[in-house]
C-alpha cells in the first residue's frame, strides 16, 4: 500500500485534487486523533500537579488548571512526605553508575568475542544465547537472599551490580565491534600498542554509536525500573524516585497533586534529553533494536 501525499507521479492514475485533499485530511485527522490520545494524559499530569485534590475530584473535568496552586510542588520539594529531591538524586546515581558499568562490561566482553579467537568461544556464545531466554524473575528470590548475605540490602550497589551484567549488551557490542577492520589492530600492534590499548584507543572510539545506543537503553531501563529497587532498597532516603512516588500512592489520604508533580519532574528531563537528540537517538534506538 502506498499512501501518497505527494503529487501524482506521471505514470500513475490522474487523481483529482479533491480526492487527494480528502485523503490527506483523513490521514492528518487520524494522526492528530492519536496525538490527542497520547498527549492528553500528559497534559492532565502537568495541569493536575497545579490542582488541589478537591479540584481534581470535581465536576466537570477540566484539562487545564484555572486556579493553579504551587502548593503541591512546595510540599513535595520541602520533603514533608518523602525526601523527593534526594530520591531523584539516587535515581541519577544509580542510573548513571549502572549505565557506566554495563557499558564497560559489555564493550569488554563484546571486544573479546569480536576480535579474538580463543578456546571455548563457541561454547560460551551458545551458552550465553541459551541463558539469554531465561527471564530475570527466576532469579528474584535467590538474588534477594544473596544481596542480604552480601550485606548489600538497602544499598545502591545491591541495585546496580545484578543489573549491570547484561547478556543483551554483550551481544549488542559484539555485533557492533565485529565490523572494525582487523588491519587497524594489526597496525596498532606493530606500533607497539598493548591489547588493552587497542581496545581503549580503537575499539571504544570506533563503536561510539553502538555505545551511545546501549547507554540510552540501559539508562532508561535503570531510571524507570521499579521491581528490583523496590525489593533491594529499604529506607526512604535510599529509594529511587519510582519507589518513592509509589509510597505516596498508598497513603491513607492520596495527595494526587503532589504525586503528579513528582511524576512530572521525573519525566521532564528524560523528555528533554530526547527532544534535544531526538532524531539521532530515535533512529539509532530502533535500528539497533531491529537489527538483532
Amino acid at each position, binding site marked *: 500500500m502506498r499512501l501518497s501525499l505527494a503529487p501524482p507521479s506521471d505514470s500513475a492514475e490522474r487523481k483529482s485534487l479533491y480526492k487527494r485533499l480528502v485523503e490527506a485530511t483523513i490521514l492528518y485527522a487520524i494522526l492528530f486523533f492519536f496525538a490527542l490520545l497520547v498527549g492528553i494524559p500528559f497534559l492532565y499530569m502537568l495541569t493536575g500537579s497545579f490542582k488541589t485534590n478537591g479540584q481534581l475530584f470535581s465536576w466537570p473535568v477540566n484539562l487545564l488548571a484555572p486556579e493553579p496552586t504551587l502548593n503541591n510542588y512546595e510540599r513535595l520539594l520541602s520533603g514533608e512526605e518523602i525526601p523527593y529531591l534526594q530520591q531523584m538524586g539516587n535515581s541519577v546515581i544509580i542510573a548513571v553508575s549502572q549505565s557506566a*558499568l554495563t557499558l564497560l562490561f559489555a564493550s569488554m566482553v563484546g571486544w573479546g568475542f569480536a576480535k579474538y579467537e580463543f578456546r571455548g568461544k563457541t561454547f560460551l556464545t551458545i551458552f550465553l544465547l541459551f541463558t539469554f531466554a531465561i527471564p530475570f524473575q527466576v532469579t528474584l528470590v535467590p538474588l534477594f537472599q544473596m544481596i542480604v548475605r552480601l550485606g548489600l540490602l538497602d*544499598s545502591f550497589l545491591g541495585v*546496580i551490580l545484578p543489573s549491570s551484567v547484561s547478556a543483551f549488551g554483550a551481544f549488542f557490542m559484539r555485533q557492533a565491534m565485529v565490523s572494525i577492520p582487523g588491519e587497524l589492530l594489526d597496525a596498532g600492534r606493530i606500533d607497539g600498542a598493548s591489547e588493552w590499548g587497542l581496545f581503549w584507543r580503537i575499539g571504544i*572510539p570506533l563503536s561510539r554509536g553502538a555505545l551511545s545506543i546501549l547507554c540510552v537503553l540501559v539508562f532508561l531501563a535503570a531510571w524507570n525500573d521499579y521491581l528490583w529497587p523496590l525489593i533491594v532498597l*529499604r529506607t526512604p532516603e535510599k529509594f529511587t524516585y519510582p519507589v518513592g512516588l*509509589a509510597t505516596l500512592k498508598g497513603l*491513607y*489520604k*492520596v495527595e494526587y497533586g503532589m504525586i503528579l508533580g513528582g511524576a512530572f519532574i521525573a519525566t521532564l528531563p528524560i523528555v528533554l534529553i530526547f527532544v534535544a537528540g531526538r532524531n539521532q537517538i530515535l533512529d539509532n534506538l530502533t535500528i539497533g533494536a531491529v537489527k538483532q
Partner: protein
Amino acid sequence: MTKLRVLMILCVGLLLFSVVAPVAAQELELWTFVNTHARWFREQAERYADEVNADFSLNVVEIAYADMHDRLLISIQSGGVGAPDIADVEQGRFGSFLRGGGDPGFVELNALLDEGGHTENLVSARQALYTSMGSVYGIEHALTPVVLYYRADVWEGAGFDPQTFATWDDFVEAARAIVAENPDVIPLHIHGGLHELLLRQQGHDYFNAEGDVTIDSAESIALMDWLLALKEEGVAGDPPTGDALWAAFKDGTLISMVGADWYAGFFKDNAPELTGKWKAAPLPAFEEGGRRTSVWGGTGAMVVKTSGQVEEALSFLEFAMLSIEGNVRRFELTNLWPPYIPAMVNERLHADDEYFSGQDLGAVFADVGPEAPPQWQSPFRSQLNSLRSAAWQDVIDGVRSPEEVFTEIADTIRDEMEFES
C-alpha cells in the same frame, strides 16, 4: 574520544562515591501507617524527653498501610536491615509475622507487662490479638468499640432519634422512611469491614478461639445475605472509595457510619466541614437486649528485636502506652478509646466534643466498652483478608453468592493450613 573516556572514568568515580554509605542518625525510629497515631507519638516523645530522658529523640515515619507491613516483614526477614526500633502493627497483618511458626522478630513483652503490673490493667481480649503461644508482642492502642455514627441533622430532621434504636429492625424501619423521602440517600453503607464487625457483634468471627476458619459459618452467610437484601431494598448501599467517599459524606449521600472509635478522628481529619452535624449512638442490637457494640481494627505497638536500643524503646512505650496520661492524651488527640483500664474512668475522656454536636463521645464508648466482643488472631488472618477483599465486589454486586465465596475462601485457607502443617 577522550571525552568518552573522561565520562566513563567520571561515572565509575560517581559509583564509588555512592558506595560510601551515609551515617545513621542516633535516634529511635518509629513506623506507623495512621496519621493520628503519628501525631500522638510525636507529642508523647516530647513529653518523654521533657520528663524522662532529655537526649531522647523519636523519628516518627508515616508509611502507607500495605507498604509499611510489607517492608517491616522483609526487614525482619533479612536480619533487621532498614528496620525501625518501634512499629505499629495492625492486628489484621500481625498474622503474617506468625506464619510458618517462626520467631516473629519482635521483643517479647511478657516481662515488661507482668513485672510492671500492667497485664491486669490491659483488656485481655485486645492483647490476645498480639499474643502467640503465650508470648505477648504488642500493646494495643485502642479498644476499638464500634458505635453508630450518624448525621444528627438528617436523622433528627426526619423525626428519628438513632439513640433510641434498640435493634437493627428499628434502624431499618427508620431508614426505609428516610429513603422513601429521598431515594439518593444511603442510610447504611456496606463498607469493607461491616460484615466482619457485625459478625463479631453477634459473637462470631472469621476465626474461632481454636484458630479454625469460620467465615463460611451459617451465621456469617446469613448476615451477608441480610446486608445484601437491605441493599436490594435501597436501605443499604455500596460506598465509593478514596476521595469520593469523603465527597459522599460531605454531600449528604452517606448519613451514617458503623465504625470504631478511630473513625471519629478520620471524620475530623477528612470532613472538617461537617463539624456539629454528627453524633454517635450505641449500635442497635440484633435482638432485644443483645450486645450493643463490636470491635473493628486495632493496632499494636511493637519493639523490633534487632533494634540497638530495645531498653529505651520499651521504656518509651511503657511511658506512653501504659500510663493514664498517655492514654487520655491519645483520646483527646485521636478519639481512640483506651484499652488501658485505669485510664477509662478519667474525666478528661468525657469532654464535650464540638465535632459531634457537643456530645460526650467518651460516654458512648464507656457505655458499650465492657460489652466489646473478643477477636481471635490467626497466622492466616491476613491471607483471609486479602482473599476476602478480592472477592468483595463480586459479593456486593451479586455476581456470586456469599455462600459460594465464603466457602471458597474457607476451603482455600483450610487447604493452606494443611499444606503448611
